[in-house]
């Protein structure tokens, strides 16, 4: 079991315990609060889509069938169950396309709501069966978000829609007069606006990265194509190491921008077909500092500037610019270093893609070379995750 799954399961056990206490001994609220805190922590580390899809469902069903304490027990218990499944299955990192992963997540969330409610309150079984149908319809109508957004986080919107509709249904079943459902208009309208703004922001972030890639590509054609390949592989490697979606996205941005500094290096040196002199090599070495400087001075993604600065450091301390050792090198830099070196060996798949000073190596040979350098040039744990990522890419 990987660290992500064990961490999730551990937190889930704590949350489940809190739920049990809340049901058996309602006066022990502090423990419930602790459970919810743990739940929030788990959600932060895993996939926050779960919270959006499950929370409205379970809270509303809880209110409808038994008041606040039941609602909280439902919420905590169901989220514990959901996180356990997510952690154990490694969902979100399975080798499926993003759309399939989103559908799978949504389906499991909906089925989970049905199973848990049926187990805890068999009398409401017919109602939850209907809620399952509504949820399924909501999820399918929300395909617009998946296909319209075409961004990895696009499924948030669909899950929000599914949760909202199920909330309305649950209140219809329960004790609240229908007029109060008007209160749901606020979250629905504000939620739609939030999703739209968030999508636009994501699109513009992507456009910014594309713009900067084009900039590098103009100055140095090899580097432009190389950046896109490295970004995809670095993200997969990061996910295999248990990085959450947000951090993996940042890693992707860092991988795209890791050679940005090369725009300020003479391309005659970058493309020199023969061996570099010491001065020329020293000039090329400046690119990691220049890239970090561009981001720091502009304020664009300042959090990734240190990763770019250190992407040529080595665990054995023989890297540059500072000669850092082991864990002193940020994990993201270690990932980029490994993927960058692999692509530099194989990188021939696009026009102008071949580096001028050496012949390309076949992918298997390049992987063997990376494995050979594990522990010296590359981080051992990263190399393992990288090898899995390459395997997943081949499978895909």
């Amino acid at each position, binding site marked *: 079991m990987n660290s992500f799954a064990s961490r999730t399961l551990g937190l889930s056990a704590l949350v489940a315990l809190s739920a049990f206490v809340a049901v058996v001994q309602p006066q022990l609220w502090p423990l419930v609060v602790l459970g919810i805190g743990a739940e929030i922590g788990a959600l932060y580390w895993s996939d926050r889509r779960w919270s959006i899809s499950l929370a409205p469902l379970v*809270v509303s069903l809880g209110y409808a069938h038994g008041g606040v304490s039941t609602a909280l027990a439902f919420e905590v218990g169901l989220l514990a169950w959901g996180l356990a499944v997510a952690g154990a299955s490694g969902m979100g990192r399975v080798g499926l396309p993003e759309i399939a992963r989103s559908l799978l997540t949504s389906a499991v969330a909906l089925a989970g709501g049905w199973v848990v409610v049926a187990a805890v309150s068999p009398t409401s079984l017919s109602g939850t069966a209907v809620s399952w149908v509504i949820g399924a319809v909501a999820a399918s109508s929300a395909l617009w978000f998946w296909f319209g957004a075409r961004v990895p986080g696009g499924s948030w919107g669909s899950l929000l829609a599914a949760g909202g509709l199920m909330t309305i249904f649950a209140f219809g079943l329960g004790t609240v007069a229908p007029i109060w459902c008007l*209160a749901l208009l*606020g*979250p629905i309208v504000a939620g739609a606006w939030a999703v739209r703004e968030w999508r636009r922001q994501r699109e513009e972030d992507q456009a910014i990265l594309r*713009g900067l890639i084009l900039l590098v590509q103009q100055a140095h054609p090899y580097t432009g194509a190389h950046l896109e390949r490295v970004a995809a592989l670095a993200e997969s490697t990061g996910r295999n190491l248990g990085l959450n979606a947000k951090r993996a996205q940042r890693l992707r941005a860092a991988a795209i921008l890791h050679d940005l500094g090369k*725009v*300020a290096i003479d391309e005659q040196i970058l493309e020199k077909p023969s061996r570099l002199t010491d001065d020329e090599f020293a000039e090329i070495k400046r690119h990691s500092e220049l890239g970090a400087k561009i981001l720091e001075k*502009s304020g664009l993604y300042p959090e990734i500037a240190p990763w770019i600065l250190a992407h040529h450091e080595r665990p054995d301390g023989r890297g540059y610019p500072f000669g850092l050792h082991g864990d002193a090198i940020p994990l993201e830099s270690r990932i980029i270093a490994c993927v960058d070196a692999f692509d530099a060996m194989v990188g021939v798949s696009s026009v102008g893609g071949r580096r001028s000073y050496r012949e390309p190596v076949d992918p298997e040979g390049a992987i063997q070379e990376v494995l050979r350098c594990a522990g010296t040039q590359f981080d051992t744990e990263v190399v393992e995750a990288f090898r899995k990522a390459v395997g997943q890419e081949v499978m895909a």
Partner: protein
Amino acid sequence: MTELLLVAGCAGITVFCLWVAVSARKRRPLMLGRAARAVGVAMSLRGGLVGPSNDEFGQIADRIGARLGWSEAQRVRLANTIQVRQIGFAAIPYQHLRQPHLHRVRERAPEIGADLLERLPIWSQFSDELRPTRRSEVGQLIALLEEFFYRMESAPAMDVLRQIQSQTDDRYDLAMREAAVGVLQESYGNRVARPKVALVD
């Protein structure tokens, strides 16, 4: 009680969603500005020795914009255009940017940059500002300042300003020319000739 919880829950979710939406809305122009600045810094590093820094250029331009009563949106557009105006350097060989006898190559940068910007949806709005035949007030002001700083490298500032003031063509709007000359005179009036400085250390 249940009704109260319902309203409170909905209000909480609404506030959260509004916060997400407003944050995203505020963040977008901020990110655009930073991205433009990243282009500006990158091109300064690539371009080598010429003219004032983007910051200095931007401050002077903003003062002129303020004197002309430009709106906040127009001044933001001005600041961003200044940052991306040298994007054409990316497509000019590094050595050519550093050899004075190849200055003609460097002069093609705006045209090359406009072509590049047109390919990028996020910055395509700035491409016209770099083309002499299509630029708006923002592009005109940048062109005027470029002319001033370029000519000031070989002549006293006051001479250059007098020449700009006496121009009779319609390259620059008359009011803009007056405002620009006023601000430039206040800032550089006593300069004999501007030495070339490194844009970014």
